[in-house]
């Protein structure tokens, strides 16, 4: 097994919902849903986002599209209307999620290499 950034396995988009933020994690390959389901959990996401997330972290599973959806409560310092944070809407938070490390088999070919081999999104 080896550890690689989540970015090699999944893509992500984040957005605001009042004071909270949602961050999706979507496996590029439906066969890899199991990797994110096992390893991208409310606990591991708290390790990454804990210092800026004042409220709870809830994970929703959406296996129909090989995705997880995380809701991070009170992560925007009051929400877009009143935050002092530089990124007022949390749209840049998806990139923090994709830096998380996940464990995959040694022979696993990550997204960057798959793109070089011609895979498209």
């Amino acid at each position, binding site marked *: 097994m080896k550890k690689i950034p989540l*970015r090699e396995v999944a*893509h*992500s*988009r984040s*957005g*605001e*919902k*009042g*004071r*909270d933020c*949602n961050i*999706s994690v*979507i496996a*590029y390959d439906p066969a890899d849903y199991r990797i994110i389901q096992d390893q991208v959990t409310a606990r591991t996401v708290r390790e*990454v*986002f*804990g*210092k*800026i997330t004042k409220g709870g972290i809830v994970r*929703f599973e*959406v*296996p*129909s*599209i*090989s*995705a997880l*959806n995380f*809701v991070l409560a009170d992560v925007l*310092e*009051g*929400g*877009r*209307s*009143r935050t*002092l*944070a*530089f*990124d007022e809407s949390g*749209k*840049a*938070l998806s*990139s*923090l999620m994709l*830096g998380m490390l996940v464990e995959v088999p040694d022979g696993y070919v990550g*997204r*960057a290499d798959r*793109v070089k081999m011609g895979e*498209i*999104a």
Partner: protein
Amino acid sequence: MKRVRLGSGSSWSRDRLQPAGDLVSRGNLDYLCFDAMSEVTMSITQSAMLNDASVLPYDPYLPLRIRPILAECVQRGVKVITNSGWLDPVAAARKVLEIAKELGLSQLKIAVVTGSVLTDRVASLGLTFIEDGKPVGDSRDRLISAEVYLGAEGILKGLQSGADIVITSRVGDACMYLAALAHEFGWSFDDPNQMAKGMIIGHLLECGSQLSGGCFADPGYKDVPDIANLSNPIAEVTQDTIIVTKLPGSGGLVSVATCKEQLLYEVQDPSRYLCPDVIADLTKVTFKQVGKDEVEVIIGDAGSPKTPTLKALIGLQEGYIAEEMVLFAGPGALNRAELTKHILIERFKKIGLKSEEMRTDFVGLSAVHRESTPRKEAEPYEVVMRIAIKTKTKEEAAKLGIEVDALAVNGPAGIGKWGTHSPGTRIRPIVGLNSALVPREEVPFSVEILELATRGVAA
């Protein structure tokens, strides 16, 4: 078989103008929907109007969007639906009629949906804030704005009246698309599955190019062709199928991946996506690539009956934010940025600055992901020190700029200034947003028709 084509004209007020014109000319559309709001739109506009009588109560981009396309929309029979009416959709409609007249159009029928704005009475409705459970009435003195997200029924009534254009105030963004589909297919508001289908199509389209290559590119991972020329998306809907696509020859892409990202965008519990007209279960949606830039959206039975309440956004006066930045680069940049932070904090003590909150960031190091930024060993070449404060009064907020300006000669070595600016321009009022649930019976909508007759404007 009946086929209805919906185009996404814009995702918010200041979205790009060009895509709508391209969709009208080449999209073979039946409807073009312009979302012209974000959450803060109404409260910021209301606040601006209190300070400046020349601020328009409707989207100032509306004339820029409508003028280039109006004649062609009328000629091709493309109906336009937009929430750019903001605080005064009647005024917005009058403006559009004025433009129509200038363009020499002989006929135009506009339906205006009002009823969303609650500013004058929200404090008396016995509501509590969702965020902290406190009575809304207790914030009466600092209340700036209040509006509910209306559903699709008002827009539908407008379309049924034969309007060419429907202009609304705040509605659920996706409701514009839902209303068009309900009108065309005769969908019933009592059928949650039909409502959910329309809401989900609207949800996919409401953020414009975010379905067709915007907010998606990550070079080497997710490459987007010809990204400077994105098309806004189109949905082609029949009784049985839904295809989302974009204009041939445009940049961007419509793929299963772009659709999945947008399906979950700004969603909390995907199995209970709360909308004014339905609760939609987004886990019942799947996507299938059926052609280049063509994705079939497959929606199972995804609806549950709507809730008895509508969501209101309530804007509260919460003081001021002031924000400044100073620039460093080269050897010791971070040390000098940190020294600047020290200087400012000492100065604030000396002058007795009364701030409610303060935040300092080192841009280039940890400003975007804030305290969750992973530790980096190497020192960045450039560091921008950013400081933002919240204060109760504008006078107090102004003290930040006074202290930062003075750093030009009193700060560390090699301190760069952030462009030129007039005093006070980096101070803004805060209209904090809270929300509340309002019983539906408290917010009836109404629809009125404004028409351009051959003799001119009649209201």
